[in-house]
């Protein structure tokens, strides 16, 4: 797929919009349809598209697997950490009302933090899964070539 000019150009045009749309879905999820789960998936789709068009090596260079693994854990940590933070502020686990003076604002902050954690984990896991599957595939694809060349 790397030699299709149309695909390469269109993908380059589309990917920034996909990323911006993912961020919109993430942070506008309080007011319209959307939220961490959807945004994470859309964010991951941008990287999967990049990997499909420009090849896995380039995609790995853009988004190193180490970062992905860190993101996977960090998302869960942000979610649980929000809960712990509310406990330190004197509430129960995940009782967001404590995060601000006004209970309603506290709920809002808490929901944004938690949704961000969800989005981070979902996006990282989806990209990780795709990279792992595609990496396998590349190995089996290239093996015969290597054998012929050797």
């Amino acid at each position, binding site marked *: 797929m790397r030699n299709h000019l149309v695909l390469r150009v269109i993908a380059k045009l589309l990917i920034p919009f996909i990323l911006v749309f993912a961020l919109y879905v993430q942070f506008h999820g309080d*007011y*319209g*349809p959307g*939220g961490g*789960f959807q945004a*994470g*998936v859309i964010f991951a789709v941008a990287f999967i598209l990049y990997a499909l068009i420009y090849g896995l090596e380039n995609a790995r260079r853009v988004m190193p697997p180490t970062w992905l693994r860190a993101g996977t854990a960090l998302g869960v940590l942000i979610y649980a950490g929000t809960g712990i933070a509310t406990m330190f502020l004197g509430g129960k686990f995940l009782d967001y009302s404590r995060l601000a003076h006004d209970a309603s604002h506290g709920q809002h902050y808490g929901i944004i933090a938690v949704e961000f954690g969800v989005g981070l984990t*979902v996006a990282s*896991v*989806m990209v990780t*899964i795709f990279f*792992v*599957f595609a990496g*396998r595939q590349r190995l089996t694809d290239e093996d015969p070539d290597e054998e012929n060349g050797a």
Partner: protein
Amino acid sequence: MTDLIIGLYNYWIVIILMMVGFYIVMSRQNLVKSLIGLNIFQTSVFILYITLGKVTGGTAPILEKGIKLYSNPLPHVLILTAIVVGVSTTALGLALVVRIKEAYGTIEENEINRMDNES
């Protein structure tokens, strides 16, 4: 009679989808196809939940001035998370299928069973 059919149509389709998925899983064939059967089963349950939450004349549960009647948001929340969890478990299943292919050289269930019995 039409009332009955329209009132229960969704449930019947859910049952049909559920049974098709169940059949694909039970009739022991290709492992990838079994996973797709599980997906069909799963989606039928999703539709059942969402159907139960629908209120005639209601709108999507996003608050807006002047609208009083909303559909039930609770099933939406349950299913929303279930879909994303579903794809990650499907990925796990596919990873197992790939490993089975590498270990056995086949992903047909009866061939794998036969190899297990022979050894």
